[in-house]
C-alpha cells in the first residue's frame, strides 16, 4: 500500500495560496477555488486579524498549512516553541497533511529565513529522516517535505538531489510535496535533465504538487513565484501527473501578485491540463 493510500490523502484538486492582496475578495465574494494553502508561520500568531481571516477562510474552503521555517535539515535542535505553535495550528485546521521544505534555514542563533539546500549524501539522509520522524510523531498527521530550488552545490554531495528526496521520504516514511518548478530551476542551474528527476520520484509518496513562475537572471534562474508558470514547467507537470495520478496541485504566486482573475485563470489552466493528462493516461488516476 502506498503512502497516499495508507494515509487516505485526498485529491483536493487545484488551489492557490491565500495571500493578502486577495483577502477582501476571497473572504467577501467566496469565488470558486478548490482549496487554499497558507504559509503556516503567518498564522502561528497570538490572534488578531490573521486568525480572524483564516477562520473565515475555513468556513468555505479546504486549507492546508505549508511551512517555511522548520529548518528540518538544520543542526540546531528542533525548535520546541515552533513545533508547539505548529501543532496548535494543525489541531485547529485538521488538514489532511502539512508540509515544509527539505532544507535548512539557520544555525546557532541566526535565522536566515531562506530555504538553503542540503549536501546530498547518506549522513544527511539519516540526519533529516531522524528529525522528520520526530516532527511527524509530534504533529500526529501526515507530513510532507518539498524539494527546494537551489543555486549552489556542495563538495560533500555524492548523490543526485532526487535520490536525497526519495531516500529521506522512504527512511522517514513521510510524504513529498513535489515542486515541479523547483525541479526545473535546479535542473537549469546545475545542468541536469529534469525528466530524470520527475521519473525518479517515488510517486506514491507525492501528496501535493507545486507550480510557480520563476525569473531568468541571465546566468541562473531564480525561484521568485512572481510570474506565470512557464511552458517547460507545464510539460514537466504533465509528466509528473502521468506518473503520480490525481494529486492536489497548487499555484504559488507570492511576488508581484496579480489580480484574482489572473491567478484563478492560472489555476484553471492547471486543472484543465491535469484533466486532459489523466484522460490520456487512464491508469494514472487509479494509482495510490
Amino acid at each position: 500500500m502506498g503512502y497516499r493510500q495508507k494515509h487516505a490523502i485526498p485529491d483536493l484538486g487545484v488551489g492557490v495560496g491565500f495571500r493578502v492582496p486577495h483577502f477582501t475578495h476571497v473572504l467577501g465574494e467566496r469565488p470558486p477555488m478548490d482549496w487554499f494553502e497558507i504559509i503556516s508561520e503567518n498564522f502561528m500568531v497570538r490572534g488578531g486579524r490573521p486568525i480572524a481571516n483564516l477562520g473565515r477562510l475555513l468556513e468555505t474552503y479546504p486549507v492546508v498549512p505549508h511551512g517555511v521555517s522548520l529548518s528540518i535539515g538544520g543542526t540546531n535542535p528542533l525548535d520546541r516553541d515552533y513545533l508547539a505553535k505548529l501543532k496548535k495550528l494543525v489541531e485547529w485546521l485538521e488538514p489532511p497533511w502539512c508540509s515544509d521544505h527539505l532544507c535548512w534555514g539557520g544555525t546557532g542563533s541566526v535565522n536566515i529565513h531562506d530555504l538553503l539546500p542540503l549536501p546530498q549524501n547518506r549522513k544527511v539522509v539519516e540526519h533529516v529522516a531522524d528529525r522528520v520522524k520526530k516532527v511527524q510523531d509530534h504533529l500526529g498527521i501526515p507530513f510532507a517535505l518539498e524539494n527546494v530550488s537551489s543555486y549552489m552545490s556542495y563538495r560533500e554531495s555524492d548523490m543526485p538531489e532526487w535520490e536525497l528526496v526519495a531516500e529521506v521520504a522512504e527512511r522517514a516514511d513521510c510524504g513529498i510535496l513535489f515542486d515541479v518548478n523547483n525541479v526545473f530551476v535546479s535542473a537549469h542551474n546545475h545542468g541536469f535533465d529534469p525528466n530524470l528527476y520527475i521519473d525518479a520520484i517515488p510517486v506514491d509518496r507525492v501528496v501535493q504538487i507545486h507550480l510557480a513562475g520563476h525569473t531568468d537572471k541571465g546566468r541562473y534562474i531564480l525561484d521568485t513565484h512572481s510570474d506565470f508558470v512557464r511552458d517547460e514547467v507545464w510539460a514537466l507537470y504533465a509528466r509528473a501527473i502521468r506518473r503520480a495520478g490525481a494529486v492536489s496541485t497548487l499555484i504559488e504566486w507570492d511576488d508581484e501578485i496579480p489580480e484574482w482573475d489572473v491567478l484563478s485563470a492560472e489555476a484553471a489552466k492547471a486543472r484543465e491540463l491535469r484533466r486532459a493528462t489523466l484522460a490520456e493516461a487512464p491508469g494514472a488516476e487509479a494509482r495510490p
Partner: protein
Amino acid sequence: MKNLSEIQAFVARSVQRRDPLPPDPAAAREAELALVGNARLSAVEMLDVYREQFFLRHVGALREDFPALEHMLGDAGFDDAACAYLAAIPPRDFSLRDLGARLPGFLREAAPWSADPRHADLARFEWAYVDAWDAPDAPPLDPAKIAAMPEDGWARARVVFHPSLTLLDLCIPAHRYRAAVRAGEPVEPPSLERTMCAVYMGHETLECAELEPGAYALVTRLARGVPLGAACEEAVAETRAEPAAFEAEIGGWFQGWTQRGWVVDLT
C-alpha cells in the same frame, strides 16, 4: 569542510556579509572549500546568490513594516540603517514578523541614528502597528459590568484594556506623518512636537487616536493596573490639572475608550 554544522555555519556567516563576495579573493578561496562551481556560476558566485537574497528579503521586510521611517531616512539611508541593524542584531526568530522588534531600541542606541530622537520614536510608533495586527482578541466590555458597579466601587476598579492597545508618548506627530506617507502625499519629515497617542485594532482595521495629556496620563496608569481612584489622583498631579475640571472629563474619555473597543473588562 565535511561536517554539516561546519558547512552551515560557514554559509550562514557568508550570506550575512553586506558586500558582494566575488571580488574578495579570500571569500572565493573559502567558498571553494565547501562548494563546487559549474559552467554557470563559480562557487563564490553561488554563495553570493544567497547573500544577495538575504539582504533583499530582510531589508524588504523591514521596509514593509516601517514605511514612514523609510521615507524619513530615504532609500539609501534606510538601507544603511537596516543593514547596520541586521549586522548588530541578526535575525533570530522563526518568523519575519518579529524582525523589526528590536529596531526602535537599536535606533535609540546606535550612531548616527541615535542623534535624532525622531528615528527611534517613529520606529516605535510603526512597530505598534505590527504588534496590534496579530494581538490576541478580547470581547468588548459587557455593559452589565458597568451597570453592576456600585457607586463606591469605581475608585477601586481596575480597567482591563484590549491587548492590541499600545500607548505612546512621542517626540513627533508620527501618526500624521505615517498617514501622509502611506497615502502617497508629499510630506516633509515632522519637526519635534510632543504627541501622545494610542495604536489599536479597530473593528477591521488598525487605528490610531491622538490623546490629550490628561487622558494619556490617566489611561497609561490604568493600563499599568492602577485602580481608577489612585490613577486619577496621580494623573491630576502629573498634569497639574484642576481636579474638578479633570473629573468632568473622565466620563467622556471612558466612553470614548469603550466605544473604540479599548476597554474589555472591569475588575
